């Protein structure tokens, strides 16, 4: 009798505890979205949701706030960074999973994991003191001088060659997402069954043909989902971008010039916000950033489900 109560009661209490913890996790997520939305409500009310999202002025003195320059900055920097990072990341994944001898693959994989774990501020620090001078002296100034002489029309497109700005931010972003994208692609490639490879080899395929015709098609779902997840990470990346992009509220009109992303805007202005409409506008930008990341993550999920071939078998 005693043990039955002990068992039943204990089970109930234990399940209840787990349910409470689970509900707490869900509450956190819901609250997070709610607080950002309600905090940004004032801004959305003042400018309208679309008006806020598409407004291109950000002026604390005039109390004019629009998220468009930052939305655009986020989209451009992450898309370009991803475009730069994709092929090298895939190449590294293929090298590790298919080509390199075991010991080399392990060393490279370890290095890549290590770099994926390196904090954003460290990338930012390196960016300020190594990348920015390099970009300024080796890329931006020569290009700028060249265009001043031969194609003055280009100067406006290039922007001031100070090193701090879009180009440096994009480059460091690309470096940061490469390890992440690469390790996701590597995981996807590792999931390809060995007999798939052997079947292609047995038809008289070279190594590359096996990769091209069997491994990559089989792993495509995981690889593309990884690409989109890397994009999501670039969208939310804050510190390194904040340290390098120059944080200008103007539309990102030039290649070298300063700009800002949604995340860098928040990081840069939030602590000094005067409250009221500015604070609300920053929270509203946070809400937009949340929506964008969610959308991108959902796309990744969708791709993984639709393009995977793994569970189609058996």
């Amino acid at each position, binding site marked *: 009798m005693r043990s039955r109560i002990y068992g039943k009661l204990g089970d109930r209490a234990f399940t209840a505890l787990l349910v409470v913890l689970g509900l707490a996790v869900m509450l956190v997520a819901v609250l997070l979205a709610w607080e950002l939305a309600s905090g940004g409500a004032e801004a959305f009310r003042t400018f309208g949701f679309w008006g806020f999202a598409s407004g291109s002025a950000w002026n604390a003195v005039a109390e004019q706030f629009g998220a468009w320059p930052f939305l655009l900055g986020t989209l451009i920097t992450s898309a370009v960074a991803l475009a730069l990072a994709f092929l090298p990341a895939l190449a590294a994944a293929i090298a590790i999973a298919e080509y390199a*001898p*075991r010991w080399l693959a392990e060393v490279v994989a370890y290095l890549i994991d290590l770099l994926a774990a390196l904090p954003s501020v460290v990338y930012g620090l390196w960016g300020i003191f190594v990348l920015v001078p390099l970009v300024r002296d080796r890329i931006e100034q020569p290009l700028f001088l060249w265009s001043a002489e031969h194609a003055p029309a280009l100067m406006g497109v290039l922007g001031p060659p100070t090193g701090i700005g879009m180009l440096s931010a994009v480059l460091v972003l690309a470096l940061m997402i490469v390890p992440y994208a690469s390790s996701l692609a590597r995981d996807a490639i590792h999931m390809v069954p060995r*007999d*798939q*490879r*052997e*079947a*292609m*080899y*047995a*038809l*008289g*395929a*070279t190594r590359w*043909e096996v990769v091209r*015709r*069997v491994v990559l*098609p*089989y792993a*495509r779902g995981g690889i593309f989902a990884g690409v989109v997840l890397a994009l999501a990470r670039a969208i939310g990346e804050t510190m390194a971008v904040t340290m390098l992009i120059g944080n200008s509220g103007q539309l990102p009109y030039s290649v070298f010039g300063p700009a800002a992303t949604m995340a860098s805007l928040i990081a840069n202005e939030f602590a000094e916000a005067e409250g009221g409409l500015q604070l609300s506008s920053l929270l509203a930008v946070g809400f937009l950033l949340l929506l964008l990341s969610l959308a991108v993550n959902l796309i990744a999920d969708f791709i993984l489900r639709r393009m995977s*071939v793994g569970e*189609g*078998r058996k």
Partner: protein
Amino acid sequence: MEPLRMETENLTVHYGKSVGVRNVSLPVYDRKITALIGPSGCGKTTFLRALNRMHDLNPIVRIEGRVRLDGEDLYAPGVDPVAIRRRVGMVFQRPTPFPTMSIFENVVAGLRLVGVRDRERLMGVAERSLKAAALWDEVKDRLHEPAVGLSGGQQQRISIARALAVEPEVLLMDEPTSALDPISTQAIEDLLAGLKEQVTIVIVTHNMQQAARVSDYTAFFLNGDMIEFGPTERLFTNPSDPRTEAYITGRFG
């Protein structure tokens, strides 16, 4: 004496420090079916994979001895494994259709490798191969559907058709029916009798009855050694080694 297609001479396969197959010399006769039998772990699959250099993919494997195809040593320096695998095809234990390809693309995958683009020729090969694999009637109306939608037995026949499409001289089969149901197994066994008109077959099987039913010659492996080789009928009715007799009468295995 029958004409030889392949033979091994003192073939030894090392797996790192251990030995998978020891000193095996085996003739493979042209357009006959040679069955390799023995308890699991006896080295028959290891031996089979040495016949088209599949072991090249595994760096810890080392091979000694000779494997000759039409008198030419497969492991001689300068011999290209890719070219060898084209002449010696392979079908695996589990069906391995390529899941991103249609039935048609699966069958002609080997031809695509060498750059055949001519649609008519590809279609001709696909039809011939699928007919040879006794699958044509079942799939001819849905050649462009994914191959993974087929049943396990059909998938295995796709794998066979795919191997036949490149017109290999020898077809290696590694327990091709062990993952299949009895009806599919029956279909594949029926198929083998017809196939040997065009191609020499070496088949590994864990199933002695299967070996007795389909093969012309049988080799019995035990612990990495080939214990006995002979015409199937003779080996099953009158084995010369007591270990062979013990195995085929079911005393171990």
